[in-house]
């Protein structure tokens, strides 16, 4: 209860013009990046990560929260108006949003998307605020062996969630774990894989890994693809959106029904708590469930607002869900929460069970910003600059990528003022580019890199405590719980046949 009060009292921080400016700026930047096909809010956050060095940690986390929320709803703009989802999480929104646009109801579709995002974001944030303190208390019960099993569970789930490319995901996770073992050993004064190079003694820094993986790799991907954006630009120039058409009539909202919004929020929230699942899986499952339970399933894919509401409610509720494991166990659920974790680590804050009790004052403003972004910034941004957002697609790509490359390379210099980190970011960018090009999910590499040090430490400590007896992972109740949970996920994601996608989604 104290934590909930702390979160709501943190709204007063938004009265500070500087903090409010950063939150609004974060939201606008997140929306712009999410709206441009090919760019993501993850990239925006990776580029802004170096700047968090100079901000205080509360402000940085609040800006991150607003970028995250914006990133989930910004993709619906291009998904609806020109049938090109700006972000993967808005893929399902395009199924019904674009047919509405073709029927001349594009602004209304955007209104439904904003309403769904607002509802999803708010419910996700409120659930997070209500649940996180209890999960944090429960997490204190998890001892060393349990912590190892939990981290192993997270890594295994991230790998097996990549259906159809599990060996690729497994190899990517191994590459991340390899990167994590470079440098001084955590328990003994032994350096590993430094090959006599002193710059590597402290290990590979998080900053170049994130900048390389998300920013430099993205620039290389765009450079290697001959994507013709003239069609998208031409389509965008034809779109005319009037502000007065944004507000969905009450009868439309009633038709969608509170049940669809709320059920989709819950699906999104719980999917968010799973490592590696992300907004696209949340919106896909919510959309599928809405089609399954609808009286008129044939109308989906032809401009049914229920489809938009389900997809957008779910992907924005993912934001709240994904923060639960990040804040309580230090396990990021997706790339954005991984970067948020980076902000904490850069500022010397160790995420984990103690975070919610010892540093609640730092976390509460971030959750307040998440809720504020959902309830205030989503509708306000759509209302004020919605009609112009579609023009973002026409931005000059040559200048855009040059700016991204400049910010990425100079940003990697900021951490240590050394060109070594810049070369490291370039190396990571090249690695991530080739991984992506060959169908390897880079999120599993990133999670391997982030979770690797703790995974190794807890494994060694657990076996040291049990005198080398590996059955300790099955005899300790907390560890056994996560082992059983891992087996349940393996059964549902690997052994049992996955649910089939709706015809409209698969044809897309």
């Amino acid at each position, binding site marked *: 209860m104290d934590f909930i009060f702390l979160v709501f009292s943190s709204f007063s921080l938004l009265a500070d013009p500087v903090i409010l400016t950063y939150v609004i700026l974060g939201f606008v930047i997140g929306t712009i990046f999410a709206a441009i096909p090919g760019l993501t809010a993850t990239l925006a956050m990776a580029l802004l990560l170096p700047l968090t060095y100079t901000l205080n940690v509360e402000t940085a986390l609040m800006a991150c929260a607003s970028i995250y929320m914006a990133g989930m709803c910004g993709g619906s703009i291009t998904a609806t108006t020109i049938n090109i989802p700006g972000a993967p999480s808005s893929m399902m929104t395009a199924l019904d949003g674009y047919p509405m646009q073709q029927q001349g109801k594009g602004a209304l579709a955007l209104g439904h998307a904003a309403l769904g995002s607002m509802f999803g974001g708010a419910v996700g944030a409120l659930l997070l605020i209500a649940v996180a303190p209890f999960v944090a208390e429960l997490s204190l019960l998890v001892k060393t062996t349990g912590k190892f099993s939990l981290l192993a569970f997270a890594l295994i789930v991230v790998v097996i969630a990549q259906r159809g490319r599990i060996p690729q995901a497994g190899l990517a996770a191994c*590459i991340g774990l390899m990167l994590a073992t470079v440098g001084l050993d955590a328990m003994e004064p032994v350096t590993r894989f430094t090959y006599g190079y002193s710059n590597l003694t402290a290990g590979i820094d998080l900053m170049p890994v994130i900048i390389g993986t998300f920013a430099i790799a993205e620039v290389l991907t765009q*450079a290697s693809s001959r994507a013709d954006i003239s069609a998208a630009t031409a389509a965008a120039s034809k779109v005319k959106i009037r502000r007065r058409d944004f507000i969905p009539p009450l009868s439309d909202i009633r038709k969608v029904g509170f049940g669809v919004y709320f059920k989709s929020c819950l699906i999104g929230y719980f999917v968010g708590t799973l490592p590696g699942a992300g907004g696209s899986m949340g919106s896909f499952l919510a959309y599928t469930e809405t089609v399954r339970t609808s009286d008129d399933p044939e109308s989906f894919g032809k401009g049914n607002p229920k489809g938009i509401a389900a997809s957008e409610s779910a992907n924005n509720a993912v934001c709240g869900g994904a923060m639960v494991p990040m804040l309580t166990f230090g396990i990021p659920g997706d790339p954005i929460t991984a970067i948020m974790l980076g902000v904490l680590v850069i500022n010397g804050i160790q995420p984990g069970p103690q975070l919610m009790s010892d540093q609640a004052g730092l976390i509460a403003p971030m959750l307040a910003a998440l809720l504020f972004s959902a309830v205030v910034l989503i509708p306000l941004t759509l209302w004020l600059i919605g009609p112009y957002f579609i023009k973002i697609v026409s931005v000059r790509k040559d200048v855009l990528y040059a700016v991204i490359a400049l910010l990425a390379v100079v940003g990697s210099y900021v951490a240590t003022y050394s060109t070594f980190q810049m070369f490291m970011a370039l190396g990571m960018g090249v690695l991530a580019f080739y991984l992506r090009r060959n169908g390897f999910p880079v999120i599993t590499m990133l999670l391997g890199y982030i979770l690797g040090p703790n995974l190794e430490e807890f494994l060694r400590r657990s076996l040291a405590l049990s005198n080398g007896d590996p059955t300790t992972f099955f005899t300790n109740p907390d560890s056994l719980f996560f082992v059983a949970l891992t087996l349940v996920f393996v059964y549902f994601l690997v052994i049992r046949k996955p649910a089939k996608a709706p015809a409209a989604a698969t044809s897309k």
Partner: protein
Amino acid sequence: MLLNRQLVFLYVTLAVSVGYLVTALSLGAPVAENGLTPAFFPILVGGAAIVFCSILILQALRASSEAKAAKSETKSDTGPATPEIRNYTHLWVVVAIFFYILGFKPLGYFLSSGLFVFALILLFSKFDKLLLKALISAAVVGTAYLMFQQLFGVRLPTLWG
């Protein structure tokens, strides 16, 4: 051709994984009297990476032979295939970033960044309107300088110290 490139990537990854495992083995015995040593985890990870690499190489080889068989069947029907157009812009971007980092401190932020942004704009567009692109580069570099140095207090190298 795509499969060959994928195979090359997998062979390189396998070689790196083997090298990693050999280095891990050279760290000493994985298990000692007082528990696991710093070598244990890297040996485990290196071994797992080699297993995953081997699976992927086998899958790629199988897919490659199936694709060849399918290609030889269709070749007689459709005639000679058109050669794939390759795009090497990403390699030039890597080269540009490499030289930018090399020149970042000796040349200072303005000169190195100006040349870098100009080069990247040219790589992502056509080789025309050079003056306009040079002016855009100067504006981008100046704005980024203001953002880093003035707004966020980051010290960037300059020729005047």
